[in-house]
């Protein structure tokens, strides 16, 4: 990570209260220049509130927000060099596509002809030049989305805020737009702050992700860190699919914790700070880190019976019940390589994993 790059947005101890209700509880985070940064969390976690505070539509109850070193609290939205792509696009319905895109430039003092010329260039960037004269209502949802993007990019903001902009699109289009957004961010070099509740979207596009829940920051890191090394139960459960099991810690030895799963099964995990013998904690094991076999294999092996196979196209998901213990879900990729065996329901199998696959979580 390049520590030299300047900080685009610095949120320090930001609190947002609506009367009795606290929407944001002391959030601090720094977003780097030229970064694709995602605020990820379920609805009501405060991610959109934080975005609106950066845009200037909500004031900050406590704390500060800095934009490239300048405090922006007190500046109205029209005085902040940030632009927003709204969830419902909010394209001006009475203006042509080109006038929509040129609006920000015109408000910044460009002449009508300059705004049109520069707007035309940005429309070209999102491949919509042929629709310049149309009204927004004459475009498809995907096209409207791109116009909203062009309109927000045209005045060359220092930071672009995107409020769940892809949520109204169908799956195929959404996937295509994810790639397009990522490319646009690289081409323009503008810092993107993207808000979504879709963890897959976040993993696909982001340089870094801030996972939020109930007004608090749960974890901040690169996509891989968040997926592979979740800090707590919420992050492990929210990002991707996982086997989340409640266990009791039997022994801590030389950096390893031996955890009891019930039914006489136990697992060895890397110990983490704040865990003592006898406490009940959670462990998380990603289903794709597990593999099945008819004889013990790998560092850890647990014996069980196949309950069900679920065909998912790209993968096969197998649910295995450990003898007198919990269920495990195992994911096997549907590739032609390797000699994978499919066990039918009722078959006795071993669930195997390598060291480090099972992660201990502090709540």
């Amino acid at each position, binding site marked *: 990570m390049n520590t030299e790059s300047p900080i685009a947005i610095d949120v320090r101890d930001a609190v947002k209260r609506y009367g009795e209700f606290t929407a944001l509880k002391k959030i601090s985070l720094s977003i780097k220049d030229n970064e694709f940064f995602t605020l990820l969390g379920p609805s009501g976690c405060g991610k959109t509130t934080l975005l609106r505070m950066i845009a200037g539509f909500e004031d900050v109850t406590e704390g500060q927000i800095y934009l490239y070193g300048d405090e922006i609290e007190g500046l*109205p939205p*029209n*005085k902040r060099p940030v632009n927003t792509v*709204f969830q419902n696009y*909010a394209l001006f*319905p*009475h203006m042509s596509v080109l006038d929509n895109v040129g609006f920000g430039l015109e*408000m910044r003092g460009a002449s009508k002809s300059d705004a049109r010329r520069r707007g035309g260039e940005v429309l070209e960037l999102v491949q919509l030049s042929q629709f310049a004269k149309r*009204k927004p209502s004459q475009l498809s949802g995907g096209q409207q989305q791109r116009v909203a993007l062009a309109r927000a990019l045209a005045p060359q903001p220092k930071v672009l805020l995107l409020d769940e902009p892809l949520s109204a699109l169908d799956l195929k289009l959404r996937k295509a737009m994810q790639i397009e957004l990522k490319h646009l961010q690289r081409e323009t070099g503008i810092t993107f702050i993207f808000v979504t509740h879709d963890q897959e979207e976040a993993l696909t596009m982001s340089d870094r992700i801030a996972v939020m829940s109930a007004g608090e920051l749960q974890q901040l890191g690169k996509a891989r860190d968040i997926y592979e090394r979740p800090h707590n139960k919420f992050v492990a459960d929210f990002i991707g699919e996982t086997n989340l099991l409640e266990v009791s810690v039997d022994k801590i030895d030389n950096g390893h914790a031996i955890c009891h799963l019930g039914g006489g099964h136990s697992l060895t995990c890397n110990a983490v700070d704040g865990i003592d013998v006898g406490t009940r904690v959670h462990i998380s094991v990603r289903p794709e880190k597990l593999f099945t076999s008819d004889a013990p294999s790998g560092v850890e092996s647990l014996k069980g019976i196949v309950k069900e196979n679920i065909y998912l196209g790209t993968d096969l998901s197998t649910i295995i019940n450990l003898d007198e213990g919990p269920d495990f879900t195992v994911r096997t990729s549907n590739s032609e390589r390797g000699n994978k065996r499919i066990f039918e329901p009722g078959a006795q199998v071993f669930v195997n994993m390598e060291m480090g696959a099972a992660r201990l979580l502090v709540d």
Partner: protein
Amino acid sequence: MSSSKTDVRRYPGFLSVTLLCLLVLYAPLVIVGIYSFNASNSITSWDGFSLRWYAEVFTGSESEKFKIAAWNSLFIAIIAASCATILAVLAAMAIIRGGQFRTRQISQGLVSLPLMVPEIVTAVATLIFFNAIGFSRGHMTIIIAHIAFCVPFAYMPIAARMQGVEDSYEMAAMDLYASRFQAFCRILLPLMIPGIISGFLLAFIISMDDFLITNFVKGAGVETLPTAIFGAVKQGIKPNIMAISTMLLGLSIIIVSLSYIVSKFDNTK
């Protein structure tokens, strides 16, 4: 239309009640309309089709009086409707776009209150008010009174339209460096124009047609079209009154229809 058993048209007596209502409401108007084309001097016996009473309105002995009254009405209606429309837009901005404030409900009620107050009460109250502050009666008093009671009529279509415009458009405009005023002029106003025109037309025709309040607050010698008609009727109903009434009715129908059509206009397609 549904043909289910709950269809209102299947209720006993539906047809007769409907016809009775229509008859009571519209027969007098239809009769006035028809008899305005009567060739006879009589207002009750039909003597063939003629436009002589329409000609009489414009050229007859009373034509000068009606002409002055009509210009007065037009002048007052344009000024009153314009002022009422501006006030209604401002009221709508405060009530619909002003966020949550404590007196919001009351404000909304106060704007529409004149619709509920009996007109004679408003008329007497306005007259007493003008007397109390020593305002001499004339064109000015009529205009002020008209502005006051036209505001709720202008407010209704304007508020309805403004409610239909999502505030995210103005937010987007401000996000794109527009000031509050620019966002209003460039975004909200163009989107609301149909509602504003509709409100203006409604206020215009309400002012144009008003008799009761005008009659109270007008000074001696100042007549609007409705008060001039009333004055003429006091000396006996002549067919030219029917002609002028029919013309006023026609104008009302046209303006109200126009107001309705404009209010439904979608300027975003």
